[in-house]
């Protein structure tokens, strides 16, 4: 349970960090909060000759709440996101999923950027990113680019990021009008990896018709999954006409590679996933109705 030896780099700026990554390529791994990476190193599931610790890079821990969008710096820790009142008002889902991430000690070190770059299929922040069409800002010594959530997650623990790139910030759009948001997650113990979970957002127009719906599931597949069929089904309809239970079933019907492991068979995960979607939807709708 001890990590293999590595060379430690503690750059003070993003440019310095990018220089190190450009030189070392595949041999180096970015270390942020370390709450997923360090266990993997300790169990030697991963071995890197170099770690580039971005924990001391100036300017990467920040929350910028704008009128139309919110930008969160990559090394902003979960616990700060969970208690940031302005952020919670602007992008409620971020604050609401935070209590589900591990435990207090994990949230004090874990970072939003680390969670998204690590791309655990049961991760809460990746699911919020997918549901809300967040944009990931990636930088390398070569270039800078922005990748939208639908194109970002490539598979189990895998994204489109190149080894010399750093995720520097994530931008989430703000919703306005009559809207509601909710998260539901099932795990065997609070803070454990989700067996299945769902995040939902809904905004209502005239006659309580669904103006916008955004639903994503996590824990059920190798990446977070957007429930596109559900969203198409509810679009423009009077919200009360939509049966949450049917919507849950519809959401999981579009997932083809449902995970099966010791925590649950794929059939079980489908049922739990459908239940989480239907509860998250009902709760988000309730909030929107009373807004």
């Amino acid at each position, binding site marked *: 349970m001890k990590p293999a030896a*590595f060379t430690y780099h503690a750059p003070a700026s993003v440019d310095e960090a990018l220089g190190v990554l450009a030189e070392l390529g595949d041999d180096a791994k970015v270390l942020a909060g*370390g709450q997923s990476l360090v266990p993997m190193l300790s169990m030697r599931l991963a071995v890197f000759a170099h770690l580039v610790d971005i924990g001391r890079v100036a300017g990467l821990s920040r929350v910028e709440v704008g009128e139309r969008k919110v930008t969160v710096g990559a090394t902003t820790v979960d616990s700060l996101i969970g208690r940031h009142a302005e952020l919670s008002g602007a992008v409620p889902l971020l604050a609401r999923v935070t209590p589900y991430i591990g435990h207090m000690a994990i949230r*004090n070190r874990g970072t939003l950027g680390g969670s998204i770059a690590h791309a655990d299929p049961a991760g809460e922040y990746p699911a919020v990113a997918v549901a809300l069409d967040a944009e990931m800002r990636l930088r390398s010594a070569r270039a800078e680019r922005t990748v939208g959530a639908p194109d970002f997650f490539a598979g189990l623990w895998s994204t489109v990021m190149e080894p010399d790139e750093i995720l520097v910030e994530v931008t989430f759009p703000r919703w306005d009008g009559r809207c509601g948001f909710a998260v539901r997650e099932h795990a065997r113990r609070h803070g454990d990896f989700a067996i299945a979970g769902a995040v939902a957002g809904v905004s209502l127009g005239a006659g309580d018709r669904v103006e916008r719906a955004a639903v994503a599931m996590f824990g059920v597949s190798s990446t977070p999954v957007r429930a596109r069929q559900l969203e198409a089904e509810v679009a423009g309809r009077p919200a009360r006409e939509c049966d949450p239970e049917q919507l849950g079933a519809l959401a999981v019907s579009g997932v083809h590679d449902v995970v099966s492991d010791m925590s649950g068979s794929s059939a079980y995960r489908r049922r739990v996933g459908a239940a989480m979607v239907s509860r998250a939807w009902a709760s988000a709708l309730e909030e929107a109705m009373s807004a």
Partner: protein
Amino acid sequence: MLDGGNPSRVAVECQVNGVARSATVQARLTLADFLREVCGLTGTHLGCEHGACGACSVLVDGDVVRSCLMFAVQANGRSVTTIEGLGGPDGALSPVQEAFRSEHGLQCGFCTPGFVVTVTAFLRDNPDPAETEIREALSGNLCRCTGYQGILKAVAVAARAGRGAVE
């Protein structure tokens, strides 16, 4: 920060329980092993060494963290508080420690330092917790004796007495 000849060795300077500590260590040395092996503070226990059990919980700049999931070098310039730093200089128990003793919040004692450190930070931030909040706050710490009822009572007693704050 890098130690000239051997790039996998690094200098660490931090405060531990108010005492300045400095050493040159392997970069891969966790904060937990630094506390136990370099500082000789063996009150911080290592159960799983991969962040699942919570026995190694310590405070870094006042925040509870798992010391097995942090490298010693990441504590550079920071202030670390271990179980040894919670009591009085004369060995007097802290209010949380006192409550664990009076309510039988420990059996074999292996997980106890992690629980006490976690509860100390929790009650400082939330002096009047609901029982569900206490359970959530303790969810990251495992007691293999399964002595949770006494632990829950200890937290409630420490909170009720309003004595949970870090001095």
